C-alpha cells in the first residue's frame, strides 16, 4: 500500500489559512502526517477540522499557505487530483447515493468495464475481495438506502480502499455508530495502519483518541494549539487543550424528584418504513422532573417510538398521553402545541431547514404565534432578537451571525441550534434523541447540564441514545428497548455497563419488565422487579 518509509512525513501543511468572507475557519495552521500513523485531530465544534480536511481533499482551496506531499509542494485542484495523489476521505456527512447499490457507489468514476458496458459483476467481486480482506462486511449488491449507517460507513471506507488511497481521512467516523460498530471500526483502522496506511481521524470521543492515536493534534477556533504524542495524555488533558479550560467529564446531578406522570405510553404498536412491527407493545411513563433514558442497540424501534410520540408516524395500536391530554394520532404540530419539545435524531432531515438562515430556523415552530408573526407578516426584529439570544446562550458559532445559512454551520453548531430552539419553547416533555451526536466535549458538558436543568425545572425528559455512557450518566431511570419491546427497566446509577449491555442484546439476567404504566416512578427495588409479561 504505502511505499514511504514508516515514520517519514508524507503530508504537511504550512501556515495554511482558509477564510470565508471575513471569517477565518483556519488560520496559520501547521500540521504533518507521518507514514503509517494514526493522527487524531480534535477540537470543538466549528474549530475548523472539516475545513482543514476539505482543503486536503481538494474541495476547498487554501486562502494562504502551502500543502506538501512527500516533501514537494502540491496544489490540490479538486477531488480527482486528491484521489490521484492517493488521498481518500470519508466525509462527516456520507457521500453515498441512496438509490445506487454499494458496489455502484464504490466504483463510481473508476468503473471496471467490459467493452462499453459497466462490468457490475467485476465491481461486486472487487468489493467483496476488499471487504473480506479487511473484514468490512457489507453486501455489494444492496442499495445504500436499505443498509444501516454502520454498513454505509464501511462502504465509504471501501470507496477509499478501492481507489488505492495511502492516506485516509476519516471525518468523525464514529459519531453515528453504535458502540459495537465503533469497536469494529477501530479494529479496521488498526489493521490499515499495520499495512502502512496513514490515517487522519477526527473525533470528539476522547476514549477513542486514547485507544487508537499515535499522535494527537488539537485545533481551537481555527488555530493549531499543538501536536502531542499519545503517551502521557489523559481525557482531561486533551479536553483541556481543546477548550482551554478544565472540562467536567462527569454529569453532576442531584437525585431526581419525580412528580406527576407527563408522558404515558400504553401498549404502543408502530410499524417501520418496511411495514414491519418496529415497536411492539411498549408501555412506560416519564414523570415531570425525571430523565428517562431509552437504551438499546440501533434499529430496535427507538426511531419509530420517538416518531410515534411526536406524531410523525401513524400508530397501529395503543395510547399516548401528554400531561393528561390524549395525543394519540394528533398531527406533529398539535403534539408540539400540547407541549412537546423534540430534538430529533436526524437534524438534517427533521431538525432544521439547511437553506434557511439561523433566524428563520429558530422560529420554525412559531409561524402562527403572535409574538413572531403579526397580521401574517413575520416580525423580523423579534425573530432576530430571539436568534441572537439563543445563539448567545447556547454558544452557537457561525461564520456570519444569525444571517448565516444553517447549512454552513459545523455539525455540532447545527445541533446546538436545534437544542436551543426546543428547550427555549419550555416544553412539558422534552425528547432528546442522540442529543450529543457529533458534538464536542465542551458542548456535551453544556448540553448535559442543560438537560439536567430542564429536569430540575420540572420538565419530563425522554433521552434516547445509542451511547451507553450517556444513558448511564444522565438517566434517573433507564428502559431498555429490544426488538421493539421494553425488556428491562433499571434505576439510574444502580446498573453498570455490563448489565445494561446484556439487557440491550436481549439476554438480560432474567428480569423482564413489560413496563406496565405506573411502575416506572414507583420502581424502588435495588435494580429491577420481576413482573410477569
Amino acid at each position, binding site marked *: 500500500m504505502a511505499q514511504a518509509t514508516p515514520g517519514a512525513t508524507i503530508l504537511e501543511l504550512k501556515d495554511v489559512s482558509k477564510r470565508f468572507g471575513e471569517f477565518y475557519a483556519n488560520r496559520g495552521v501547521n500540521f504533518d502526517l507521518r507514514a503509517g500513523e494514526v493522527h487524531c485531530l480534535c477540537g470543538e465544534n466549528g474549530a475548523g477540522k472539516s475545513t482543514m480536511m476539505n482543503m486536503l481533499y481538494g474541495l476547498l482551496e487554501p486562502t494562504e499557505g502551502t500543502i506538501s506531499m512527500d516533501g514537494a509542494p502540491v496544489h490540490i485542484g479538486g477531488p480527482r487530483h486528491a484521489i490521484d495523489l492517493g488521498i481518500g476521505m470519508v466525509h462527516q456527512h456520507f457521500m453515498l447515493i*441512496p*438509490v445506487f447499490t454499494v458496489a455502484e457507489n464504490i466504483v463510481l468514476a473508476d468503473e471496471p468495464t467490459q467493452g*462499453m*458496458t459497466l462490468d457490475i459483476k467485476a465491481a461486486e467481486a472487487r468489493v467483496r475481495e476488499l471487504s473480506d480482506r479487511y473484514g468490512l462486511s457489507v453486501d455489494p449488491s444492496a442499495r445504500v438506502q436499505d443498509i444501516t449507517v454502520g454498513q454505509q460507513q464501511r462502504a465509504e471506507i471501501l470507496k477509499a480502499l478501492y481507489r488505492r488511497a495511502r492516506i485516509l481521512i476519516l471525518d468523525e467516523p464514529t459519531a453515528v455508530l453504535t458502540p459495537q460498530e465503533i469497536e469494529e471500526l477501530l479494529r479496521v483502522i488498526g489493521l490499515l495502519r499495520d499495512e502502512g496506511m496513514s490515517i487522519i481521524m477526527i473525533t470528539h470521543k476522547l476514549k477513542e483518541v486514547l485507544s487508537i492515536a499515535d499522535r494527537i493534534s488539537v485545533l481551537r477556533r481555527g488555530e493549531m494549539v499543538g501536536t502531542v504524542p499519545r503517551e502521557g495524555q489523559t481525557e482531561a488533558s486533551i479536553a483541556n487543550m481543546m477548550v482551554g479550560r478544565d472540562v467536567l467529564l462527569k454529569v453532576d446531578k442531584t437525585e431526581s424528584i419525580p412528580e406527576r406522570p407527563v408522558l404515558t405510553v400504553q401498549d404502543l404498536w408502530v410499524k417501520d418504513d418496511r411495514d414491519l412491527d418496529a415497536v411492539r407493545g411498549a408501555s412506560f411513563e416519564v414523570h415531570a422532573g425525571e430523565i428517562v433514558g431509552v437504551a438499546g442497540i440501533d434499529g430496535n424501534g427507538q426511531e419509530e417510538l420517538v416518531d410515534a410520540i411526536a406524531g410523525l408516524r401513524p400508530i397501529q395500536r395503543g395510547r399516548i398521553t401528554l400531561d393528561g391530554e390524549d395525543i394519540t394520532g394528533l398531527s406533529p404540530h398539535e403534539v408540539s402545541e400540547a407541549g412537546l419539545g423534540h430534538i430529533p435524531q436526524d437534524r438534517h432531515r427533521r431538525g432544521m431547514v439547511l437553506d434557511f438562515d439561523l433566524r428563520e430556523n429558530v422560529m420554525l415552530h412559531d409561524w402562527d404565534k403572535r409574538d413572531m408573526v403579526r397580521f401574517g407578516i413575520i416580525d423580523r426584529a423579534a425573530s432576530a432578537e430571539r436568534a441572537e439570544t439563543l445563539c448567545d446562550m447556547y454558544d452557537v458559532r457561525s461564520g456570519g451571525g444569525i444571517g448565516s445559512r444553517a447549512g454552513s454551520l459545523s455539525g455540532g453548531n447545527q445541533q446546538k441550534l436545534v437544542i436551543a430552539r426546543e428547550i427555549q419553547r419550555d416544553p412539558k416533555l422534552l425528547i432528546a434523541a442522540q442529543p450529543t451526536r457529533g458534538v464536542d466535549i465542551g458542548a456535551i458538558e453544556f448540553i448535559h447540564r442543560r438537560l439536567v436543568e430542564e429536569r430540575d425545572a420540572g420538565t419530563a425528559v425522554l433521552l434516547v441514545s445509542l451511547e451507553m455512557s450517556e444513558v448511564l450518566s444522565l438517566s434517573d431511570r433507564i428502559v431498555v428497548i429490544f426488538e421493539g419491546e421494553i425488556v428491562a427497566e433499571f434505576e439510574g446509577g444502580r446498573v453498570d455497563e455490563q448489565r445494561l449491555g446484556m439487557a440491550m442484546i436481549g439476554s438480560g439476567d432474567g428480569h423482564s419488565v413489560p413496563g406496565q404504566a405506573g411502575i416506572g416512578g414507583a420502581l424502588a427495588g435495588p435494580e429491577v422487579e420481576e413482573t410477569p409479561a
Partner: protein
Amino acid sequence: MKEFVDVWILGLGLATLTYGTPLILAALGGLFSERSGIVNIALEGMMTAGAFFAIYVSVQTNSWFFGLIGAMLAGMVLAAVHAVATVTFHADQIVSGTAIILIAAGLVNFLNLTLFGSEGSPPDISSPWKVGPADFRVSVLVPLAFLAVAGTWFVIFRTPFGLRLRSVGEHPRAADTVGIDVARMRYTAVLVSGALAGLAGAFISFNVDSYTENMVAGNGFIALAALIFGKWKPVPVMMACLLFGFAQGLASRLGGVGWLPDAFQSPELLNALPYVITLIALAGFVGKAVPPAAVGKPYIKH
C-alpha cells in the same frame, strides 16, 4: 370487416405511432436532462425549432438527412442556452425553460415569415424514407425512435457514463467528491436532450412536409408528463408516450363515428381527450414517482 381492420387496427395503429413517435423522442430527451438533475420544460421550444429547421434545411440542401441534422443542431443551440443559464449561472430551471419556449416560438415564427413568406415552404421537399409493408408505411424515424429507447436504456443503465450521469442527478456533491465534473455531465445531458427534442420536432413537420405555426401544440409538455408517468425509465416512458399517442389517434378518429352522441363529436371535446387521459394517468396511476433526488436544484461548489 376489412373496413374495421383498416380503420380501427391499421389506422389507429398508424395514428398511435404518428402521434407517439415525437413524444418518445422528446421524452427521451427529457429523460437525459432530468436524470442529470436539470428540468427541461423547454422541450416544447426545442421541438418547435427542430420542426422549422428540419424543413428549412431540407429545402436548402434538398436532403432530408441534413434536415434532421439541422433540427438537432437547432435543438442543441437552445439547449446550450438552457445549460449556460442553469448549470453555469444557477438560474432557476423553470424560468429558463419558460423563457426558451417563448423565445423559440417568437424567433421561429419570425424566421418562417421572413424565409418562407406567407405561402409557407415549397410543396415538394426531400422527406425521410418510408419503411414497412404497403398498407403500414411509416417514416424511418419511427423505428429510429424505438432504437433510441433501447439505446437510452443501455447508455443510462449499462455504461459508466450512465452511472455518472445518474449520480450527478441524485447527489451532485457525492459525484464531485469522486472526481466527476458535475457541470460537464449536465451540459452533455442537456445537449443530448436538445438534439432529441429537435429530432422530435423534425418528425412532426416532416409528417406533413411543411412547417406551420404552433404545430408542436403542447406535445413537449405531454412528453414531460410521459416522462413522469414512466418514472424516468426508458421503456415505461415509451409505453406512456404510446398511450398518449393512442389517445390522440383515437381523438382524431372518433369524429366520424355515427353512433356517438353529437356532443362527443365536437372537435373541441375530442381534442381534449389526450390531455384528460394525461391528467387521469398522472393523478391516478403514477403512484409514488420518485424523481432524481437533485433534479431542479443548482449545484454550487463552495
